[in-house]
């Protein structure tokens, strides 16, 4: 089945220790998104890639970076995780920009010790 896959499902890191979360998709969609979701809140968009074009949300901290080496994969790098970065990180894809449905992966729950 075509899908959005996130690994790992749970990630524990130490305060200040860089961590990378990964996302892959078999949908061959052009757009990939990263969201942060804290407990009992709605997902918050961090950034998105349209093909190789990276678009950062204005309020996304510099601590968060992303890479998309090819159509299928996208990575979220947190350079120096703080306690406030503990959250669920969701990857999503859409076929194109515009009025398109976004399809979400299962998420990676990040714990910062």
């Amino acid at each position, binding site marked *: 089945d075509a899908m959005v896959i996130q690994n790992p499902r749970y990630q524990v890191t130490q305060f200040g220790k860089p961590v990378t979360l990964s996302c892959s998709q078999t949908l061959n969609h052009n757009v990939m998104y990263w969201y942060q979701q804290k407990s009992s809140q709605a*997902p918050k968009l961090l950034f998105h890639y349209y093909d190789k074009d990276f678009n950062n949300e204005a309020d996304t901290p510099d601590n968060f970076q992303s890479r998309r080496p090819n159509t299928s994969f996208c990575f979220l790098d947190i350079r120096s995780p703080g306690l406030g970065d503990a959250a669920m990180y969701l990857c999503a894809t859409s076929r194109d*920009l*515009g*009025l398109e*449905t976004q399809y*979400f992966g*299962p*998420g990676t729950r990040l714990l910062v010790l």
Partner: protein
Amino acid sequence: GESVGLHLPTLSVQEGDNSIINCAYSNSASDYFIWYKQESGKGPQFIIDIRSNMDKRQGQRVTVLLNKTVKHLSLQIAATQPGDSAVYFCAENEDTGFQKLVFGTGTRLLVSP
């Protein structure tokens, strides 16, 4: 905008009842609306969508109603089942250039057997 707060509105229903989940959206220029279901520890799952040129759309056991006059969206679930228990988010596609998806606060649906 981003939802805030630790306490989600909650709707409690009995199995077999019909459920209605409401959402007030913010942008009168939004063209596209989606309902997502999010079970605990999982990513949001697409349920149904509707475009602004429609006022009603039906799926399997679900109906979405759109009232553009008062900027209101509702999700009706017929014959609610325990497996429907989840948090439900409405999302509007806001025209900010790349048409960013903006999520509502979310409603927790609890279905008792």
